[in-house]
């Protein structure tokens, strides 16, 4: 029995850590690129977006995992989408109520979490096949990986684009902000080079 539960713990830990690097949704699997590019001009919106995604991901994974035995194959994706849309509506209303500024700043990108492929991919690949607990852990790991990737990208763009980090001045006075990094151009270029860096690290390791 002891070895069995040890094995179980190992699976949980492995699932939790997988999302952070090995199967990081943004940096390795290239899922959920739209919010990654759109909300990363500064760290605060990126972090808020990450929290929303974790909330939706955990809730939808629990729900999908609970109804996994009743799903009909051809209606699967539709059910996933509807579940996610419901929880995104909840997240959107919560954000409007408690963080109205952030809700305005994120604009349509909060409802766009519905079509974030990272969430549907987790529902399909994990929650529809696994029990509730494992699905929650998977959702936490993947959500954390997503938030981390967003914050790294947003950190690079905010520090170099405005000289601030989390709205606090960090660069010296003489630093001339690279304004382009705050614009759409900067999102594409920064993410491109970040992915290149990740690919380089992966090559060096193997």
């Amino acid at each position, binding site marked *: 029995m002891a070895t069995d539960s040890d094995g179980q713990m190992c699976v949980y830990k492995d699932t939790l850590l997988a999302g952070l690097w090995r199967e990081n949704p943004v940096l390795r699997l*290239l*899922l959920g*690129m*739209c919010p990654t*590019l*759109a909300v990363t001009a500064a760290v605060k919106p990126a972090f808020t977006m990450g929290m929303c995604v974790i909330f939706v991901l955990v809730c939808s994974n629990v729900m999908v995992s609970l109804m996994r035995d009743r799903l009909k194959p051809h209606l699967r*994706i*539709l059910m996933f*989408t*509807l579940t996610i*849309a*419901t929880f*995104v*509506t909840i997240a*959107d*209303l919560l954000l409007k109520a408690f963080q109205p500024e952030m809700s305005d700043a994120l*604009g*349509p990108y909060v*409802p*766009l979490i*519905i*079509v*974030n*492929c990272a969430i*549907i991919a987790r529902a399909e690949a994990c929650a529809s096949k696994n029990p509730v607990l494992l699905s929650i852990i998977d959702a936490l790991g993947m959500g954390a990986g997503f938030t981390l990737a967003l914050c790294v990208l947003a950190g690079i763009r905010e520090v170099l684009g405005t000289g601030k980090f989390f709205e606090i001045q960090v660069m010296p006075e003489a630093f001339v902000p690279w304004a*382009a990094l705050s*614009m*759409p*151009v*900067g*999102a*594409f*270029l920064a*993410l*491109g*080079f970040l*992915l*290149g*860096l990740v*690919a*380089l690290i992966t*090559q060096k390791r193997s």
Partner: protein
Amino acid sequence: MDTVYLLITGFLSVVLINNLVLTKFLGICPYLGVSGRVDMAFGMGLAVTFVMTLSGTLTWLIDHMVLIPLGLEVTRYVCFILVIASAVQLVEMYLRKFFPPLYDSFGIFLPLIVTNCAILGLCLFLNLWGIDSLLEAVVLSVGGGIGFTMAICIMAGIRENLRMVDVPQCLQGAPITLITAGILSLAFMGFAGII
């Protein structure tokens, strides 16, 4: 005359200045995935344009005829995504029946249009921009689709040529595509002053 002028500026704005892909970052997944060859990219663009026109119009109608009069704005996202999923299903059935080769070449990407953020994004933007005439909603939906087609075709053309270029190994694939998209987006910023 004013209406026509408004429609033309709206159309140009959504195609060039507020291009969904290059300035709003919508539809990046198919943009990276299907932009390997120009013919595939064009087919994908047409499918997206069609679905976008259909769902943009339908969601505008549902929003103004049903949800707002009944005070059901809370269910907006769920309704929108249902309309889009049905529209995609319709296109899928139509293509499978009448254009089997095109259907085969799309493969997995056709059902994935459901999760194409560009389409839901456009429906949400129509709502956000406060578009209040049906004609304007239709024109903007078509424009959004054409803008997407244009962006993805330009990208596919560039990527076909990129194959003959010596790209550093770590930048091959998605990274170089994103960097190219960045430069393209910089070029599109030049349109910002025309209206």
